[in-house]
């Protein structure tokens, strides 16, 4: 227990200290984590921690990240990307593999090892690149989209690679390995026995339970296809009732648990049939991209993804073997830079082929120039399958880690040096149609529902967030889109796109919840105007102090209308009733504003002397209203309709006659 707590504490301290500093320095969170890992590596070594096994656990962050990426991608968008996906991705992997293999053969490696090295180094780091692109808001740029296509292709390509690598096995290495007692055929989860090579997450065939091993090819294929079908069909038909059932319980943590269960379940299923869990969850994400639970899933999974990826980067930093590095400093650094240069050249050539322009070309060329976490996976797999000898793998591991470590530097180079040069010349493509609504409506009950209908009817796109499964059903039956979740949660309101919203309408119930949401948004997104619903007068003052642009008392307008109807029924002329209603509302708003100005949320009303004085004065002025003195509004409502008196007319006449010649 103490060991675990100590370990968790060390990792957390490292991350919490290093990342804000790195971000402040403009280095990005990834480099922050990597540095944190390097800093704590001696401590971890002292504690005897198996960094690599933690890394394999942390790789699950990549799975979650791809699930989140899938959630952002509707199937239609994915289909639209198919040319880029296959063309760019296929050529990148193929081209890089061939060139790296060539270099390795020139350096004297046999072709089998060279090919394996080529495959390992062709892959880029999905974790670093996607994280960085998202952080810097480059995901939607042309370069970002192209990078994403390549990364997605690589993630898919890992699967056939894992199938192919064992075929490269070298007989002499196999002899050596036979003593170690583990190899390609071992089907038991053998823990951490000896080498850490054969027991980890990403698409690992060798060391875990499998549904397909040992089956004839056609059966295995059938099961694999069946699993994918299950993910898609389950995603389409089962998730809605399932999530709805869980939502009924009204427990937030239960939804988080369900979301985790969902992701882990799919990852498990994919692993069982020998597919990449990252690919499986990505697919599930795509299926759920249109679901109304998307935002809630996003905000539930996102913290786990963040923590796991952070842990993953720390372990990459911590895993750097400085002894080995310092021993071969020149050659390893040389090979690392050589690799980055080579990958960049391939990417730039592809960028040229696919007509990426200006800054996008360089973003694409530099962003993907590192080797990636799948490289680690493949490396351990190649060692386990006796394709690459351990000592060579250790050096390659360093190259992969170093190239990842250098990636944030390349992004900084792009951001500070390259992008500014293209700001003016870059041609602007048509804006991406944003899935996020222009207006976020928090709460879709009796109040927000009407606002939503009105805005929709006038052609504005809205994003509705509501925590009531019944409301969602109703919305769906009308063909609306709405998202499930508690709008007072910062992460959900963030997922709903508050950053880019033109307006937030707070229509949820409950004073406390309204205040919490408004306060959060006013503090963190001061550029988003907020229209809020107030439950009573006092609440108006609170919201006014928080800086809402409009504050609507939820029952005020309907009450005034009721009063107006009463006046009409009592025989008042409808237009006079309208004028009285207008005057009343205007006067009431005047009082409200006067009071709001002297109200201070930090001082209780009973101690706020300015407030008490003001309220006394206003009350006195309006005593007549309260005690039903007749026609208090006459003077103001009929101003303008009062005919001139006879004296007025005579004065006009006299004036005219005086001027007459």
């Amino acid at each position, binding site marked *: 227990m103490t060991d675990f707590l100590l370990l968790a504490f060390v990792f957390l301290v490292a991350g919490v200290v290093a990342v804000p500093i790195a971000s402040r320095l403009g280095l990005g969170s990834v480099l922050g984590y990597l540095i944190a890992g390097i800093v704590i590596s001696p401590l971890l070594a002292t504690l005897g921690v198996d960094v690599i096994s933690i890394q394999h656990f942390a790789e699950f962050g990549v799975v979650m990240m791809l699930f989140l990426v899938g959630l952002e991608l509707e199937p239609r968008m994915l289909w639209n990307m198919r040319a880029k996906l296959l063309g760019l991705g296929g050529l990148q992997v193929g081209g890089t593999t061939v060139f790296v293999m060539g270099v390795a053969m020139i350096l004297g490696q046999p072709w089998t090892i060279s090919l394996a090295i080529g495959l390992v180094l062709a892959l880029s780091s999905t974790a670093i690149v996607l994280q960085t692109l998202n952080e810097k808001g480059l995901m939607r740029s042309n370069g970002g989209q192209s990078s994403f296509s390549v990364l997605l292709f690589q993630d898919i390509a890992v699967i056939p690679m894992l199938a192919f690598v064992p075929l490269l096995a070298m007989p002499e290495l196999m002899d050596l390995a036979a003593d170690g007692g583990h190899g390609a055929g071992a089907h038991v989860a053998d823990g951490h026995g000896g080498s850490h090579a054969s027991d980890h997450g990403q698409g690992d065939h060798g060391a875990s339970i499998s549904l397909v091993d040992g089956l004839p090819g056609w059966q295995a294929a059938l099961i694999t296809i069946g699993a994918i079908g299950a993910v898609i069909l389950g995603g389409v038909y089962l998730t809605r009732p399932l999530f709805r059932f869980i939502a009924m319980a009204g427990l937030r943590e239960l939804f988080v648990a369900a979301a985790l269960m969902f992701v882990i379940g799919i990852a498990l299923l994919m692993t069982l049939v020998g597919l990449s869990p990252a690919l499986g969850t990505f697919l599930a994400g795509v299926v759920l991209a249109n679901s109304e639970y998307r935002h809630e899933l996003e905000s539930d999974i996102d913290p786990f993804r963040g923590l796991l990826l952070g842990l993953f980067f720390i372990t990459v930093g911590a895993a750097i073997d400085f002894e080995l590095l310092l021993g071969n400093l020149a050659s390893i650094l040389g090979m690392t830079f050589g690799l980055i240069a080579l990958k960049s050249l391939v990417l730039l050539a592809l960028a040229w082929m696919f007509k990426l322009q200006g800054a996008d070309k360089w973003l694409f060329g530099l962003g993907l120039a590192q080797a990636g976490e799948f490289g680690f996976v493949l490396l351990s797999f190649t060692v386990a399958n006796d394709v690459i000898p351990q000592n060579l793998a250790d050096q390659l591991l360093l190259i992969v880690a170093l190239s990842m470590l250098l990636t944030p530097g390349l992004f900084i180079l792009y951001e500070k040096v390259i992008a500014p040069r293209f700001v003016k010349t870059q041609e602007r493509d048509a804006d991406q149609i944003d899935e996020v609504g222009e207006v976020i409506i928090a709460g879709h009950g009796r109040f927000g529902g009407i606002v939503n209908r009105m805005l929709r009817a006038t052609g504005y796109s809205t994003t509705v967030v509501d925590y009531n499964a019944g409301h969602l059903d109703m919305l769906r039956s009308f063909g609306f889109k709405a998202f499930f979740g508690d709008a007072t949660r910062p992460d959900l309101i963030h997922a709903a796109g508050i950053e880019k919203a033109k307006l937030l309408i707070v229509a949820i119930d409950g004073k406390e919840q309204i205040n919490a949401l408004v306060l959060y948004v006013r503090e963190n997104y001061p550029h988003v105007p907020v229209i809020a619903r107030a439950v009573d007068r006092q609440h108006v003052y609170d919201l006014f102090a928080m800086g809402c642009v409009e504050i609507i008392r939820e029952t005020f307008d309907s009450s005034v209308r009721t009063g107006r109807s009463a006046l009409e029924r009592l025989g008042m*002329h*409808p*237009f*006079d*009733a*309208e004028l009285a209603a207008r005057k009343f509302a205007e006067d009431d708003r005047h009082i409200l504003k006067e009071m709001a100005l002297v109200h201070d949320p930090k001082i209780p009303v009973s101690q706020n002397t300015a407030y008490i004085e003001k309220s006394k004065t206003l009350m006195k002025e309006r005593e007549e209203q309260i005690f039903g003195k007749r026609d208090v509004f006459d003077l103001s409502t*009929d101003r*303008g*309709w*009062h*005919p*001139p*008196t*006879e004296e007025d*007319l005579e004065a*006009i*006449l006299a*004036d*005219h006659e005086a001027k*007459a010649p």
Partner: protein
Amino acid sequence: MAKIIVYYAHPGQTFSRANRAMAKRASNIEGITFVDLYAEYPRHDIDVGKEQTRLLEHDVIVFQFPLYWYSTPSLLKEWQDLVLQHGFAYGHGGDKLAGKTLLLAITAGGSDEAYTRDGYQQHTMRTFLTPLEQTAGLCQMRFPPPYVLFGALKADEGVELTHHIDGYVELLTRIRDDKFKLKDATAEELTCASDILSLSEE
């Protein structure tokens, strides 16, 4: 039988002397449609389709209003702006009102002397009514001499107001019964109570 619709527009009825009394009597005449515009559209949300249907169903359209700043009260102006659409009242295919009659029933605060070239209003009443006259013209409607009460604010003193109200009822009843010749008005022509009341004495 002519079908008459009276559009009555007065935003301050509480203080009205002449118009309210006129409206009360006119609304009781059998067989004519009476519309209190400010009661029907207190929030100026005029139902254009409904108003156009009403116009099609009537032969004589009466605007009854107090003269405000030499024009109609704002709601009646809004009514004209919205209801007399292109293609309905004028312009291409806009002949739906052709042959109908637009009659004005106006009360004015100033005396009849005030509405002369030498009076303090500096123009005749008909000069101020030119926009309405031309509106009728463009809509191919007849524009008979407007029925006008001058000095409406003083009218409570004398028999003049009673005369005007009686004359108004008489005028509307006669038009309804086709007993009044609706002709286009000449340049400065106006109708006053005595003109109408003298008809019944004949």
